[in-house]
């Protein structure tokens, strides 16, 4: 079993690439962790689909106001400079290219940038939420994900086999093993865990890994 990053560590790594002053949307669930690892000298403004810009940490249990929630229906708090707006204005921000980055989870990411993250197939109740809007709206769409599924199958693939969320939309993937850019239809490896060989990483990746100059060590703090 290869050493791998925890979800917290993947989130930490993704947070390091968010610039000061960025407007950011974090997908429901795992991506929400990214907010907790912003470098202290940078300020990002977080957007949630349901009409809040500039929200902060979750309140302490018992302090929730359930009219003040995020897209994942978790209670949030406001930071100075926050604003409320309706859903059409909220998605004008998304679709209109006003968000600097959206960080989403994934079932599969293809080397073409295609993303599958909303449906695992015809069984069950389909639910899409705002993901299809985010992938075609934010200036930069990044994915955070385990490198492989629970069953050890690659999540980074040549072409998605699951229903697509968007076509050619993802440009960066932070996984439990590596940091990978998507450039011109290729996975370009930028960072990998120091204890993992290139060949081992390739064997757990469903499409060819390219390099373009040095591959840096992916180093993250204990969290």
């Amino acid at each position, binding site marked *: 079993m290869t050493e791998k990053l925890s979800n917290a560590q993947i989130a930490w790594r993704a947070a390091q690439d968010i610039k000061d002053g960025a407007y950011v949307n974090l997908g429901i669930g795992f991506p929400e962790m990214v907010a907790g690892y912003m470098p202290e000298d940078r300020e990002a403004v977080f957007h*949630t*689909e*349901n*009409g*809040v810009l500039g929200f902060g940490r979750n309140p302490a249990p018992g302090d929730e*106001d*359930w*009219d*003040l*929630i995020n897209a994942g*229906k978790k209670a949030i708090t406001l930071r100075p400079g926050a604003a*409320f*707006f*309706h*859903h*059409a204005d*909220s*998605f004008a921000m*998304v*679709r209109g290219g006003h968000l600097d980055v959206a960080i989403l989870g994934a079932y599969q990411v293809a080397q073409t940038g*295609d993303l599958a993250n909303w*449906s695992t197939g015809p069984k069950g*109740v*389909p*639910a*899409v*939420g*705002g*993901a*299809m*809007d985010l992938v*075609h*709206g934010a200036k930069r769409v990044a994915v955070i994900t385990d490198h492989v599924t629970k069953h050890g199958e690659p999540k980074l693939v040549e072409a998605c086999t699951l*229903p*697509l*969320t*968007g*076509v050619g939309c993802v440009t960066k993937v932070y996984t439990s093993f590596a940091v990978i850019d998507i450039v011109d239809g290729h996975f370009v490896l930028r960072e990998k865990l120091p204890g993992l060989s290139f060949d081992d990483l390739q064997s757990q990746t469903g499409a060819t890994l390219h390099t373009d100059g040095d591959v840096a060590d992916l180093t993250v703090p204990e969290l």
Partner: protein
Amino acid sequence: MDKRIATLAEAVSGIPDGASVMIGGFGGSGAPIELIHALIDRFLETGSPKALTVINNNAGNGHVGIAALIEQGMVARMVCSFPRSADPRVFTERYQSGEIELELVPQGTLAERIRAGGAGIPAFYTPTSYGTDLAKGKPVEEFDGRPYVQERWLKADFALIKAEKGDPYGNLTYRMAARNFSPLMATAAARTVAQVSHLVAAGDIDPEAVVTPGIFVDGVVEVADPQQEEELNRAGAHHP
């Protein structure tokens, strides 16, 4: 001009079988629980309205609000973006048994289709859903070298929404993230009724602070201490 309605029963009295009803709210925030429950109470007394099409971001949670509406068998069709919740069992069972039809719409497209309905825009193009299963059968057109999906406006016979303040002209304000779809739905329904937590006199809402101008609202009914869906569900509430 006096759009005040005295009772919840009166507020929901005009909705017939088969009507399309937009219901405000995102999860529990902004859900007009009292209006929905008044509609259920009417159904329990009279057997109507049924076979409703309900438009909401979600498809109910637990056994109150929209979930309770579904549980009573009043809903034939849901239009929503995310029919999952902490406790989605009521919808899930009806959906899987084929009793309820589902039109799944990306959240931003749902918002924009409703806005378009209210703004007299019969169709628009969006990059959202291009190349996905949700774009199947929809016209695609290229603008400036990029492909877009054509989406149609969405209107409804009725909108039931929750607001914070309302005046006799129908002007409304909202409370925090409870705003969400409600200002859009108010514009896109043939008849919009708002339950307001504070019914105030004309002139008591600053014209700068009005979020929904009264032209979009047909009736306001005061519900002074509204129930919050999330709190009801955490308490395990059922309606009735």
